[in-house]
């Protein structure tokens, strides 16, 4: 992706760290997992994930 490092793929454009198609509990879980993934990239020297 144009040479950006530490990029995590979000859940689409309209709710990058959310999901309008699942229950609120599942959505919170998804958001947490995406944020945790982001935090993982910050601790890693890997360029892509």
């Amino acid at each position: 992706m144009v040479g950006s490092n530490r990029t995590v793929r979000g859940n689409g454009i309209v709710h990058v760290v959310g999901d309008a198609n699942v229950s609120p509990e599942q959505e919170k879980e998804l958001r947490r997992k995406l944020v945790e993934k982001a935090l993982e990239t910050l601790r890693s020297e890997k360029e892509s994930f």
Partner: protein
Amino acid sequence: MRVVHYLNQFFGGLGGEEKAGAPLEVRDGAVGPGLLLEQLLGGNAKVVTTLVCGDNYAVEKQEAMISSALEKIRDAKPDLFAAGPCFLAGRYGITAGALCSVVQSKLGIPVVTGMSEENPGVDLYRGMLYIVDSGSNSARMRDVLARMANLAKKLMNHAEIGLPAEEGYLPRGLIRDRFVEQTAAQRLVAMVLAKVKGEPFESEMMPTAFAPIPMPPALKDLAKAKVMLITDGGLVPKGNPDKIQGSAATRWGSYKIEGCDDLKAEDYEISHGGYDPQFVRQDPDRLVPLDAMRELEREGVIGKLHDEFISTSGLANPLSNTRRMGREMAERVKQLGIDAVILTST
């Protein structure tokens, strides 16, 4: 020919970095490089006024300084305004570009400046101004001033300005129509053949180049880290107090989330024309994951979530805006002692 010249504290003879806070001064006649500029312009050219200002003062008080400078320039009734050359000095280049741009539009007189291609002033102003390619070596001052003088004389005589390589200015990214001998198909095939043979060829269109930015080292201790959220999805407080534009935004804002565990729908709106905002409107955490970050902060996974998030709109935003805003945001993030940023994008 009456000329007004702008110089920073160094070329204006005030001193080095320690004088970067010097306020705007007006001097009669030419100063420093201005003396050479006068000579190179020849004829009856005279630098009637030189404006000198410290680089920090110029960027920190930009609006006020430019307003004041414009008045003084107007008073001098110049036929030409010249700034710099600035070489690689970024604050100087940004100021020179801003001044030239405002003088050009408000006073309608020719303006000329010089910078190195990597100077941040170039990105911001190259499309509007003739910026002589000064390179980074100030030992080449005479040569740079000579090109500035030539360009200035042509501008004053309304002569046709040649291509960047011919006149020594930085390409402005503008497209001009011309008649040539060969059709596009012929020129293209010639280029391909040259490329295949390993021979040199010149591209007619230059794709935007992104200078590679080295990846910062990883965080050693996440549990002690101060993390900040940034978004380019255009999430702003209700009423959009900073009037951030939905498209080609020139502004960004920083918004308090102290004591908040969750972004509430009624407190925010979206200023971004590029995606269907209904889902983020229902729950802004779907764009700026405050609730998840708070949980992680409480659990000690991260040290601290900074109590503001930064926002702007990334839609259809030219590099001239985003490079500047990115730099400004980075400056802020650095000032706040943030260890890491999570940037969410639509």
